[in-house]
C-alpha cells in the first residue's frame, strides 16, 4: 500500500468518528454515570429521607405553631347583632343570647384562669360553673363577676344605665360606686350619668327574658321604659316629650312580627299620645 493511500485512509478514519468534547467529555459524563449507579440510589434515598424529614419538621412546626396559636390565642372576636337575636356558645361552653343591636367580644380561647367578655347592648348569660375560672363580664362602667349562673345584662350605649338582672345563682356587680351582690330576681342598676348604683327587685322572669323568645312584653311598664326598650329593639332613638307620659304605664305584648310603626300605633291607642319623626328620632308627644 502506498503511503499516500494510507494517509488518506487514516484521514477518513479520523473523520469517521468524533472524540468527546465539551459537555460530552468524560468529566461531564462521569457525573451522569454517577447519578445512575450506586451513589445515585443512595442519594435518592437520602433525598427522600431528607424530604421526609423536612416534611416532618414542617409538620412539627405547623403543629407547634397551631398548638401555640391555640394555647395563646387571646385574639378577641366580636359578635354583633342587627335586627335579630343570636345565640352564642363561648369557648367554655357558656351560652349567651345576644339581643338586637348588641355586640359581645370574647377571646377565641380563655386562658390564665380568666373568662373575660365584654358586652355592648343586652345579653342573657348562662355561665358554666367553674369555680377556678371566674367569669367576668364587662359592660360599660360595670363589671359582673360570676361563678356559674344565669343572668341578664342590659347595657345599651345610649341608655345611660347598666342593668344586671340575676335569675339563678349569684353574681357580684362591681361599679365605680361600689359593689352589689345580687340574689335571684334582683337587678343592679347603675346610672352612668349620676353614678347612682341601686338594687331593684325585678319583674317576673318571663318578662325580663321575653326578648329571648322574640317577644316584646310590657307588663304594666311606664312609657319611658317602653320607649327605651323599643328604641333598643329597633335601634332608633325614641324620646318622650312629657314627664307625665313617661310615667304612664301600659300593659302590652308583641311577638316581633310587628313593625315599630305598628307597635307605636297600637300603643298610642292605649295612651293619650302621638308620634312624630324628625331626623331619625321618634318623638312621643302628649295629645
Amino acid at each position: 500500500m502506498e503511503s499516500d493511500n494510507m494517509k488518506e485512509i487514516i484521514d477518513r478514519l479520523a473523520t469517521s468518528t468524533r472524540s468527546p468534547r465539551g459537555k460530552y467529555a468524560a468529566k461531564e459524563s462521569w457525573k451522569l454515570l454517577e447519578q445512575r449507579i450506586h451513589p445515585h440510589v443512595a442519594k435518592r434515598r437520602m433525598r427522600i429521607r431528607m424530604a421526609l424529614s423536612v416534611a416532618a419538621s414542617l409538620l412539627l412546626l405547623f403543629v407547634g405553631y397551631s398548638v401555640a396559636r391555640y394555647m395563646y390565642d387571646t385574639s378577641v372576636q366580636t359578635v354583633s347583632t342587627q335586627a335579630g337575636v343570636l345565640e352564642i356558645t363561648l369557648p367554655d361552653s357558656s351560652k349567651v343570647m345576644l339581643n338586637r343591636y348588641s355586640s359581645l367580644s370574647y377571646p377565641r380561647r380563655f386562658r390564665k384562669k380568666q373568662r373575660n367578655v365584654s358586652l355592648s347592648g343586652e345579653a342573657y348569660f348562662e355561665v358554666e360553673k367553674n369555680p377556678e375560672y371566674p367569669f367576668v363580664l364587662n359592660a360599660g362602667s360595670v363589671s359582673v363577676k360570676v361563678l356559674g349562673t344565669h343572668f341578664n345584662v342590659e347595657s345599651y350605649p345610649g341608655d345611660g344605665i347598666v342593668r344586671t338582672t340575676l335569675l339563678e345563682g349569684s353574681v357580684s356587680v362591681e361599679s365605680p360606686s361600689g359593689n352589689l351582690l345580687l340574689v335571684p330576681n334582683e337587678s343592679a342598676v347603675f346610672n352612668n350619668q349620676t353614678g347612682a348604683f341601686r338594687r331593684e327587685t325585678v319583674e317576673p322572669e318571663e318578662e325580663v327574658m321575653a326578648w329571648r323568645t322574640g317577644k316584646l312584653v310590657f307588663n304594666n311598664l311606664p312609657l319611658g321604659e317602653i320607649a327605651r326598650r323599643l328604641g333598643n329593639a329597633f335601634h332608633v332613638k325614641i324620646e318622650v316629650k312629657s314627664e307625665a307620659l313617661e310615667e304612664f304605664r301600659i300593659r302590652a305584648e308583641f311577638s316581633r312580627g310587628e313593625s315599630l310603626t305598628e307597635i307605636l300605633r297600637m300603643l298610642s291607642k292605649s295612651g293619650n299620645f302621638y308620634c312624630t319623626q324628625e331626623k331619625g328620632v321618634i318623638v312621643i308627644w302628649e295629645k
Partner: protein
Amino acid sequence: MTEQQIRRYLRQIGQEHSQTALRNFFEMCYDRFFRIAYFFLHREDWAQEVVIDVFFKVWERRLTLSHIQNLEDYFFIMLKNASLDFLSREEKYGEGGNAEMRSLEQSPEEKMISEELFSAYVKALDRLPDRCRAVFILVREEKKSYSEVAGQLGISVKTVDAQLQKAQNRLKEMLFPEND
C-alpha cells in the same frame, strides 16, 4: 489502554465494588467508547447516552467481568450492539424527525471504512501517547490549524507538526503492519 490495567480495574470493581476503580476504568476508556458509539450513531448526545449506559451495565455486571476473554473486542461489540439497539429504539419511539434519520446514512467515504478497520483504528488511537493523540485528533478530526492547536495545547507549531507526524507514522504501523 492497557489490557492489564483494565483487568485490574475490572477485578476491583467486581470484587471490591470499588467505585474508584470504576472511575479509573471510566477515565481510561470513555473517549474510546465514545468514538465507537459515535461511529455508529453520528450524534454526540446519543453517543454519550449509549456510552454511559454501557458503563452502567459494566457496573451492574461487575461480578461476571473476569470471564471476558478479549476486553477490547468485547467492549467494541458491546458498544456496537448498544448503539444499534439505541438506533432501532429511536426509529420506533424517537422523535422520528428526518433530520435524525439522515444522520444515520453514511457518507460514501464512511462506507469504505469497514467495521474491522475502524475497530483497529480505535485501538491504535488508544495506543498513541497522550500528547501525540491529542494533536492528531485536533488536527485531523477537528480540522484545526497548527497554530490553533499549538495555542490550545501550549506547545510550539513545530512540536505540533512533529507530534502529528509521529502519530501518523505510528497509526500506519499499527493499521497496516503488513507494509512494514
